[in-house]
């Protein structure tokens, strides 16, 4: 009975205060309109608070009404932990997959790098080969054997000291 009386009185007061608010505005009675508006807001807040409190009490009572049921749920939650995430299962050592996903990734990366190296080698051969030959030749010319070979002693200034009568 009390559950109906309090909201009922509040609702009647709310409707009455709202109606009088409009009536007082129509009659140009501002002070009374302000009082009615204040009563309207106060009753509205009271009704909202009453409804919320009743809902909270109902939820609390529902939780506390059966402690056996609560204990049973807690035990079930302890016994059944949440399932393991399967997002990175392929990285686990005990994964059911026999071919880790890294293998095709590494194979693909190796193929791409080999192709890139081939392209670089081809490009280097086409662009650097002709320009390098004169420089290499000039460098190698200084390292070459003297004219006439290494056994030719005609240019040796010490030849007369070794063989004074050697005819040539």
């Amino acid at each position, binding site marked *: 009975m009390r559950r109906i009386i309090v909201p009922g009185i509040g609702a009647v007061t709310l409707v009455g205060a709202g109606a009088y608010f*409009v009536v007082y*505005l*129509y*009659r*140009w*009675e*501002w*002070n*009374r309109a302000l009082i009615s508006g204040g009563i309207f807001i106060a009753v509205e807040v009271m009704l909202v608070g009453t409804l919320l409190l009743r809902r909270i009490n109902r939820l609390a009572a529902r939780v506390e009404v059966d402690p056996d049921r609560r204990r049973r749920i807690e035990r079930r939650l302890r016994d059944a932990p949440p399932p393991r995430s399967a997002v990175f299962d392929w990285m686990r050592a005990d994964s059911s997959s026999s071919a880790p996903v890294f293998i095709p990734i590494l194979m693909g990366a190796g193929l791409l790098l080999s192709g890139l190296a081939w392209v670089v080698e081809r490009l280097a051969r086409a662009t650097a080969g002709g320009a390098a030959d004169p420089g290499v030749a000039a460098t190698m010319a200084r390292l070459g054997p003297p004219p006439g070979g290494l056994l030719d002693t005609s240019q040796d200034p010490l030849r007369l000291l070794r063989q004074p009568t050697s005819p040539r």
Partner: protein
Amino acid sequence: MNGAALRTLVAFAVAAVAVYFGVQVLQEATEYHGGAGSQARTTVVFSVKDRGFKHGPDFAAEALWRGCVATIGWDGEDDPVAQGDQTYHATLRPSLPSDTRRRLRGCLEDLTMNHVRGRVVSMSSGPA
């Protein structure tokens, strides 16, 4: 769109239209339009009841009357004259239109002055 959503939309539209027209009606009812009535004068008979007011009923009636007629428009006025039993009559010229009469009545009967409450006994318009 299912039926429940359509009903909600219709209810929302009806409520919006009702609120809009309600606000319009209330705005029209509480707006001061001014102007004058078709008669020559408006006579107001009102009574005052004071509680703890230290300056007497005559002063209370005059203060209440002046405070209220100051918010409306008129060309000439007669100050409140006592008729006995804390009842007074006063006159405004020219007559007041209906919404201005409602405004004057509301001011006199509202809690305009501390410790003083007025009540309009009669308000009539007529020739000079």
